[in-house]
């Protein structure tokens, strides 16, 4: 009897807290974030979390945010995403490519919750939006800088997974580099992880031993920058400004600014104007920002600034023909600009990349 009473008491207490929580949630908008890595990676996830903090700053008491770190990019992501939906989140940002299917599945189950998936292309129900940044625009500028700065004519590229986002970056980098030096070469190493500092360091060492003297990365830690500094070559930062890790090494870095977008979308949920969309912001919208051009002669910095300005103003787009695919077939004719669909689903190398694309 005692036990029964106790459990009854607990149950009612639980019910009470639950109602209290719901009551509180009604006047607060809850924005939730799913992260691939730890917020302390000082790269990709760190920048998304900066965006989350901007949301808190912008709306203060009117908003509540939550996040989950280190969520694996597999079917397992389903549970935390749906967990957020059940916990009363009004809008959920899933911030890595392979959350694409779990996000869409969850969206069908929870039609009243808004979902925002980063870097993907599937919007299977009206409550899913996709958003991405044109990081490749920055990669083109980096390619040009690399071609001007390299002594050996070979740059190294630490790549994570062969998804469109990464392939676009590699293509854009080589197009930029070969616009300066047609013989410029790129060695690509795939590490099959977004975040593993010691492994990224190993890959960096291997590339340097292979004779590259400029390092660039599409993984999330500052490890390659540190190795580059130690071996006295130049490198590009990734996702955030990594100058502290290579004061005499970093040439520039592509900084992801998610804050303005997150503030805009959470605001839209608050005033009921949220609608499905697919946006791809770049330099023009301030989503892709270049860190200061450092450790290079003035004329190289000037060239980089000019290219970036042209891309920002829309005067120039990195994927402008004539461009051939790696297999020698024609892709873009003279003056033709790549359409967004092809770029979003990019699964081929352009001519000039000296690597076999893992399929």
């Amino acid at each position, binding site marked *: 009897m005692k036990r029964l009473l106790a459990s009854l008491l607990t149950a009612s207490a639980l019910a009470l807290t639950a109602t209290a929580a719901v009551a509180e949630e009604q006047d607060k908008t809850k924005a939730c974030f799913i992260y691939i890595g730890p917020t302390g990676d*000082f790269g990709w996830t760190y920048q998304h979390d900066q965006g989350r903090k901007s949301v808190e700053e912008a709306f203060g008491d009117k908003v509540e945010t939550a996040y989950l770190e280190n969520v694996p990019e597999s079917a397992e992501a389903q549970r935390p995403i749906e967990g957020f939906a059940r916990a009363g989140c009004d809008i959920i940002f899933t911030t890595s490519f392979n959350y694409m299917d779990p996000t869409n599945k969850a969206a069908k189950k929870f039609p009243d919750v808004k979902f925002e998936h980063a870097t993907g292309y599937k919007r299977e129900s009206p409550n899913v939006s996709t958003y991405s940044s044109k990081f490749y625009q920055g990669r083109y500028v980096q390619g040009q800088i690399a071609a001007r700065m390299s002594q050996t004519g070979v740059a190294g590229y630490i790549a994570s997974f062969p998804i469109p986002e990464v392939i676009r970056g590699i293509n854009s980098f080589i197009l930029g580099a070969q616009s300066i030096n047609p013989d410029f070469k790129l060695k690509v190493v*795939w590490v099959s992880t977004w975040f593993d500092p*010691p492994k990224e360091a190993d890959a960096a060492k291997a590339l340097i031993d292979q004779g590259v003297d400029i390092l660039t990365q599409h993984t999330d830690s500052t*490890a390659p920058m*540190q190795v580059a500094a130690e071996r006295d070559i130049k490198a590009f930062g990734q996702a955030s400004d990594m100058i502290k890790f290579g004061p005499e090494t970093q040439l520039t870095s592509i900084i992801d600014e998610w804050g303005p977008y997150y503030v805009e979308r959470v605001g839209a949920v608050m005033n009921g104007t949220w609608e499905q969309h697919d946006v791809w912001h770049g330099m023009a919208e301030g989503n892709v920002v270049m860190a200061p051009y450092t450790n290079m002669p003035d004329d190289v910095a000037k060239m980089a600034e000019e290219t970036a300005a042209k891309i920002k103003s829309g005067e120039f787009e990195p994927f402008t023909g004539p461009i051939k695919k790696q297999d020698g077939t024609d892709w873009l004719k003279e003056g033709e600009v790549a359409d967004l669909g092809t770029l979003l689903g990019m699964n081929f190398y352009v001519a000039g990349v000296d690597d076999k694309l893992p399929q």
Partner: protein
Amino acid sequence: MEVWVSILLSICAASTPLLLAATGELVVERSGVLNLGVEGMMIIGAVTAFSVAQASGSVYGGAGAAIFAGAAFSLLFAFLTLTLVANQVATGLALTILGLGLSGMIGESFVGLPGLKLDAVAIPGLSGLPVVGPFFNQDPLFYTSIVLVVAVAWFLFQTKAGLTLRAVGDSHDSAHALGINVIAVRYFAIMFGGACAGLAGAYLSLVVVPQWTEGMTAGRGWIALALVVFASWRPWRVLLGAYLFGAITIAQFHAQATDASEFSHLPQWLFAIIAWATSLPAQFLTSLPYLATIVVLVLIAGNRRLTMINTPASLGKSFVPDR
């Protein structure tokens, strides 16, 4: 520096943390305890080493603190499994999860700070030698890892204390009947394992990448655990296993980055091998170290005699003194 020397040195750097952690865990398992918390103790070591080095300005202070922190953290596991007789597997897993979370909390203010690096120390006389010289001009933790293997091999198989430890691991009941304090032996073994794992973590945050990032051990603790089985609980084989793993990790990056046509001057057959290796898909190459580990584990598991002889018979079993 010659390229091949540089490659071999990166292999040493990739192998050393695994070797340190696996050697420690080997001693733990030899005493009959399975501690799955290696990853957790390692990352506690990494964050302690980094933060103490930052605060005190001394990398050696950082490394020392990591040893201490790893041992102290493992004491939690020892208390739960030995004194309170909790399930070892569950407690070990909990230790890993706790370590990962706790380290993130401790290290929060250190994210995004470049750290101090433990510099190489040349061994007088040896570092000047031709060819092998560079191997005697590495960081002190590398030397420690090699000395540790020798010391553990000697301790386990040449000393009475080592025999006692193995006896506890093989049959805690018999050892108890002989008047050996099983619990005390296991406490020491677990703390030694924790200290080694802590040092392995320090190696990551002070030598490999002088920085603190959450989750920077990225599964190395689990590899160390696999290496102990891989080595069928023999110290020298741990050395072999760790370096094999490190070598494959580094070699596959080179295979990816190598342009086979640069080797067309080599004999035909050698060129054919290089061309074949470099044409393998990148996903296959990056998974090679893990595949190799699995294959060896399967081979060992298939050899009953090998496993029977070396597996500590009381491994993973709780011990409750009956009086």
